[in-house]
């Protein structure tokens, strides 16, 4: 009995060691397709979230700067592309047998609600293969994460604002992850001056020092948070993994700026609030839960916490209709 216990402990320790060592980047394969996407590790730590008053172009909602602690997670090296997002919209691979699924979590894929098929072309002629998916609501982006978790067996979700900014900054305190010089922005980002008024293929500019592409520009990215202008003011210093639980449909936070924005909206600390105008030209009632007809500048990327949260916590980080 004792021996068995020791052996169990031994095996457990080995497993533990392996999981510790495996905090590396990996390619997540999608069963039933040739598609995979890269996740890069972000080792948690303490950082200064927000911008100081003297930062040129900053907005008042970016302060006051607070120390924030973030736990370790993986983040998509790239924004989610149409190839991947369409698999969720179409739901044609759900029933394909999968013997290589991870066993981190197990959820019933049939219980994950699906996005409706949009009436019109949501790429707006800007391109499909290799380009970032756009126009999804935050709910749709989160349901995608739920679906992806069911398909892969790994727990994926949207990043919190804090996680997003931590990953964007990659240890820097400057306006951009490459410093303060806006003249260098063209090397790292697609924005109003160089985008040709459309999104571009993901990963075609330089990454930040942690290997993450397009955090500045290309498409703005959904976070989990309700947009609260005074969120930092109200927040305790040194809070751990903070976020503003979203309860109202609007406004919620997107980050990073997009192909249509000027440089100051691309800064690491810049926050943008979602708006009901993003569904202005949806001619139907009720307006779609899944599509923002007027937000061709909004996309997202995904994260996976290094330590799997308990089930109750996991569900809290997945959005449901408000």
């Amino acid at each position, binding site marked *: 009995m004792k021996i068995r216990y020791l052996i169990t402990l031994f095996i457990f320790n080995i497993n533990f060691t392996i999981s510790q060592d495996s905090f590396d980047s990996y390619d997540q394969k999608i069963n039933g397709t040739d598609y995979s996407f890269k996740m890069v590790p972000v080792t948690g730590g303490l950082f200064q979230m927000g911008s100081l008053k003297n930062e040129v172009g900053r907005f008042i909602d970016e302060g006051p700067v607070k120390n924030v602690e973030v736990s370790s997670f993986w983040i998509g090296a790239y924004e989610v592309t149409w190839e991947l997002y*369409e698999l969720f*919209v*179409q739901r044609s691979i759900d029933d394909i047998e999968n013997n290589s699924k991870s066993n981190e979590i197990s959820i019933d894929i049939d219980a994950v609600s699906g996005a*409706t*098929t949009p*009436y*019109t*072309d949501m*790429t*707006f*002629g800007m391109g*499909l293969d290799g380009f970032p998916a756009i126009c999804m609501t935050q709910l749709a982006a989160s349901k995608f994460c739920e679906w992806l978790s069911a398909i892969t067996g790994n727990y994926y979700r949207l990043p919190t604002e804090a996680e997003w900014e931590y990953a964007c900054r990659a240890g820097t305190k400057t306006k951009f992850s490459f410093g303060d010089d806006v003249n260098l922005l063209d090397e790292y980002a697609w924005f109003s001056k160089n985008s040709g*008024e459309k999104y571009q293929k993901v990963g075609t500019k330089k990454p930040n020092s942690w290997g993450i592409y397009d955090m500045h520009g290309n498409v703005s990215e959904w976070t989990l948070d309700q947009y609260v202008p005074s969120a930092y003011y109200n927040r305790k210093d040194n809070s751990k993994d903070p976020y503003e639980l979203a309860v109202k449909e609007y406004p919620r936070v997107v980050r990073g700026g997009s192909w249509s924005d000027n440089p100051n909206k691309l800064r690491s600390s810049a926050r943008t609030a979602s*708006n009901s*105008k*993003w569904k*202005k*030209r*949806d*001619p*139907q*009632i*009720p*307006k779609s839960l899944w599509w923002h007809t*007027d937000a061709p500048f909004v996309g997202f990327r995904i994260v996976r916490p290094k330590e799997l949260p308990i089930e109750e916590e996991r569900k809290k980080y997945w959005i449901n209709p408000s």
Partner: protein
Amino acid sequence: MKKNEIKTKDFSRRNFIKKSALITGGALSIPLSVDAMANVNNEKKLKIGVVGCGGRGAGATVQALKADPNTELVAMGDAFMDRVDSTLGSVKKAMENYNSSSLKRIKVKDSNKFAGFDAYKNVIDKVDVVILATPPGFRPYHFEYAVNAGKHVFMEKPLAVDVPGIHKVMEMARVADEKKLNVVVGLQRHYQNKYIDLKSKIDRGDIGRIVSGQVYWNSPGVWVRKRVSGQSEMEYQMRNWYYFNWLCGDHILEQHIHNIDVANWFIGEYPISAQGMGGRQVRNGLDHGEIYDHHFVEYTYPSGAVVASQCRHQKGTMRRVDEYFQGTKGSIITGKAEIKNVNGDLAYKYKGKGLNEPDPYQFEHDKLFSSIRNNEVISDTENGAKSTLTAIMGRMATYSGKIITLEDALKSKQQIMPESVSWSDQPPTIPDSNGRYPIPTPGVTKIY
């Protein structure tokens, strides 16, 4: 040919310009003068009803209620009572979010909720303005009843699914004009500032005479409603109406008409012939009825201009919803709102106001109600019917594989929408023992 049937000469350029002046006159945003304001008749409470309680019917209802504060929603109809109830709920919710006091303007008594194929009569009888948003097959009959009853109309495109339906709509357009009824058709690009502006640049001669164009609605496709056990064939087809021609007319009508209509509008003519090809190669499952998943049509205009029209519902293929035109002095792409000169240099771009640009779906209702209040007349029907006919000609061409002239098309007696429909009827198309419907086949299918 019956006396009241339209003829090819009704499609002449002269006729287009005369009628389209009326149409764009309705769509252009001209501020009301003080004198005009004095004539505004706001006193009368206008009663609104909706026939066809899908998402679009609900959307149009909310837009109508927002367009004019002295309106009330009083009656609703649909083939199915569950659609009436869910639409009433979503309209209430939307109006409450818009302005809580406007909830009082939703006054649909249980006795004014109607289900079934005759629901439209009951709704139209009770209102001043009716929204017609059922599947398009029913449109000619509903429009006829509304005009005969002297009601103002907002109706969704397309306006018919067959040529007899077009004749009926054209005939009723004349009656509506005589009665000075306002009719707005949901070809909302006519009410979108970008298109109105680009059209004015064409009329000014910025790209010269249009000689060619390419118009597109290529997308992965639309919703599908699967068969539910216990449903009759009629109920199944009515729920999954997009895939049945007698209800939908195929996606070249139901959706691509928007782009074909822009070609007609910008060129200022209607095509005199069409030829093309199409089929259903990918979207061909049991729940996909009888319509094609792609059409490619070449339209020839009286001036000699040729427009290539393509519409496709196939997943994983190139997407484009857009209109391109080439003229003797330059070219235009409506998606980018750009005009280039013959050397390919950017000559003009419509800037717009981004998220503050007016919503064309709202603007078409704003125009409808201000026209009613000012005793003016908006008459979108004729253009809507003619552009619907252009799309029907395209479908005839792809189904038959033949050249379809305007003259031949106008002679067609092929009525795919029955005069009347009831729940006990068999639909015009029924599946074989494998659940498959007869599919139009080029070289075999006869168009008459």
